[in-house]
């Protein structure tokens, strides 16, 4: 790297930053004494800080470019996670450790920690569901939270009116989610990309506005309170034990979700979704029913959201429309994109990082969202494929003998 021009670039960047932040960092109007304070020291800090940060930024960028040029080096780095996952000797003990950790987690940590973990796991379910729609089928859905709301309200209302329990509400919520997925799917069959995003965004808002304004149906903004937690074989548990119980339920559902999504991905339907994402016209020409494949994706994606909604209602015991804003949709989309589109491991880690990080960053109080945003930007610049990018299954053939069973080593 040539030193002098780099220094000059950083210098210009820092000047620019000093100019931009001048009004907010330097000038302060003291309204009590009616004088203007000039905090010149801040300007110096901004200058020095942005100088080094811009240098670091470009240094990392150039390192990334060099990595791309050195192909072998790059491959080694990007596939580190997938190579680790291939290593059987490593993966089995690691998986065992992880399993033990997840099982004893609620017993070694406080109820508060367990509760945070439940939230994160609910988002794992949501992420995996949206992954089907966005990651695999390539349909940008910004109204995903609507299905989450459908699930939550399904449990809330069915319990309020008919006294339905958690375990009955779970499949009902899932089915209603799927139904709404198909309802949304029909009008948007012809749409793609930006247009689809706008329509789904509208759909999400419609559901939220209905819940907010149709008082007779959904009790409006005041929401539904006193939703029972899942009972343990007819026994009502204390809050602490109910949390532990929900934790295990969510872990169970998550495991099932992971298995099912993994299997779907690696099936005829899953391949059709990916083909749909890659090229819609070629996909039809290859004999894939576009309409049916899209509806499948919407319905299955929404099913998980419906289930997650039921779990959410049972966990918080109170739901109102404020929990189902567009912001939630964005977070879930971030989980999928940041984790790695189409990759199950990626989405799981994405959900854990994105939900747990803001919680544990609470120590930084008002700066936590700033740090959070910075991490997002860094991720997208330096790892655009996500934490764990999608790895295609590799088929190996020992010889050209046709009776050979294909062996899988990925």
């Amino acid at each position, binding site marked *: 790297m040539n030193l002098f021009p780099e220094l000059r670039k950083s210098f210009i960047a820092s000047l620019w930053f000093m100019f931009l932040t001048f009004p907010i960092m330097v000038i302060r109007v003291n309204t009590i004494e009616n004088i203007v304070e000039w905090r010149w020291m801040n300007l110096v800090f901004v200058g020095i800080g942005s100088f080094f940060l811009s240098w670091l930024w470009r240094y990392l960028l150039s390192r990334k470019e060099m990595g791309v040029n050195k192909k072998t080096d790059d491959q080694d780095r990007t596939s580190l996670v997938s190579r680790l996952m291939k290593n059987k000797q490593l993966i089995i003990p690691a998986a065992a450790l992880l399993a033990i950790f997840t099982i004893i987690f609620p017993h070694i940590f406080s109820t508060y920690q367990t509760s945070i973990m439940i939230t994160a796991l609910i988002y794992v379910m949501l992420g995996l569901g949206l992954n089907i729609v966005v990651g695999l089928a390539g349909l940008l859905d910004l109204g995903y939270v609507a299905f989450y709301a459908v699930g939550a309200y399904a449990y809330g209302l069915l319990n309020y009116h008919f006294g339905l329990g958690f375990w009955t509400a779970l499949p009902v919520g899932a089915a209603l989610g799927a139904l709404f997925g198909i309802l949304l799917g029909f009008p948007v069959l012809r749409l793609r990309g930006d247009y689809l995003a706008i329509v789904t965004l509208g759909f999400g808002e419609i559901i939220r506005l209905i819940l907010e304004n149709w008082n007779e149906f959904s009790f409006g903004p005041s929401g539904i309170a006193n939703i029972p937690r899942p009972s343990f074989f007819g026994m009502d548990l204390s809050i602490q034990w109910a949390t532990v119980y929900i934790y295990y339920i969510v872990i169970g559902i998550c495991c099932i979700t992971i298995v099912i999504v993994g299997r779907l991905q690696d099936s*005829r339907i899953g*391949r059709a979704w990916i083909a749909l994402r890659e090229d819609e016209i070629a996909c039809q020409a290859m004999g894939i029913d576009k309409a049916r494949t899209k509806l499948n994706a919407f319905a299955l994606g929404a099913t998980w959201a419906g289930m997650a909604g039921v779990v959410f209602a049972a966990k918080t015991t109170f739901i109102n429309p404020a929990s189902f804003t567009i912001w939630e949709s964005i977070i879930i989309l971030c989980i999928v994109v940041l984790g790695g589109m189409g990759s199950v491991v990626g989405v799981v880690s994405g959900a854990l990082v994105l939900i747990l990080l803001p919680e544990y960053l609470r120590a930084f109080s008002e700066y936590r969202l700033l740090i959070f945003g910075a991490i997002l930007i860094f991720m997208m610049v330096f790892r655009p494929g996500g934490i764990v990018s999608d790895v295609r299954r590799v*088929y190996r053939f020992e010889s050209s003998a046709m009776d050979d069973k*294909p062996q899988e080593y990925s």
Partner: protein
Amino acid sequence: MKAVLEVKGLSKDFGGLRALNGLDLDVGEGEIVALIGPNGAGKTTFFNCITGMYEPTEGDIFISPTGNGNVKERLQGLKPNQVTAKGLARTFQNIRLFQNMTVLENVMIGRHCRTKAGIARAIFRFASQRREEREIVKKSFEIVEKLGLKQYVNEFAKNLPYGAQRRLEIARAMATQPFLLLLDEPAAGMNPHETDELDELIRKIRKDEGISILLIEHDMKLVMSLSDRIYVLDYGQKIAQGTPKEIKNNPVVIKAYLGEEIDA
């Protein structure tokens, strides 16, 4: 000879523009038929009408699949995927592969319309689904091997050299088990060596699989050596048809391609 594809009076209007005008065409069993004509003559429009991408304004399209006696079926009004299920597979002029899928997966997609495992089967992995899945992999691999793509089998489609991408498009179409293959400019952008290979490949497909072929092509050398019969299109009209020899000496065709001679 029995005709596997019969097109009668096919017309297609785009607003006020008549892209195809009363076209008659047929492809016999095991025949290689070429469709040629200057740019904008309506060749690709014709393909799109047949494969259900466009709905024809007028005319009839009949198929009678190989090995199905003399039963004629109408093809209009079917969606592209239904047309493919009937046994017509196509490739595209501008390559349309599934870029981020491997070569084998691309071919496996072609098996989609010949298999039927649904969501429930995919989730529960019944024995029937596993058997079907093995079958898909096996068949796809056979096709990959046949088209000389074995060395790329686990490569992403986007990383393939150009000629191999063209071949992969044909492989993918073959996986749908067609009786008629519609190739839209398969030799576009190929060097002479690759074109020769393609020539061989198309002959092999006809010979080994008994698939009839309808191709659009600008490379006259390939067209003349390969086709049994040629149709020439200009401004949506058929201006000539016949064997390569007849076409080569047809004054109307020469005029369409080279323009009219001006008398001094």
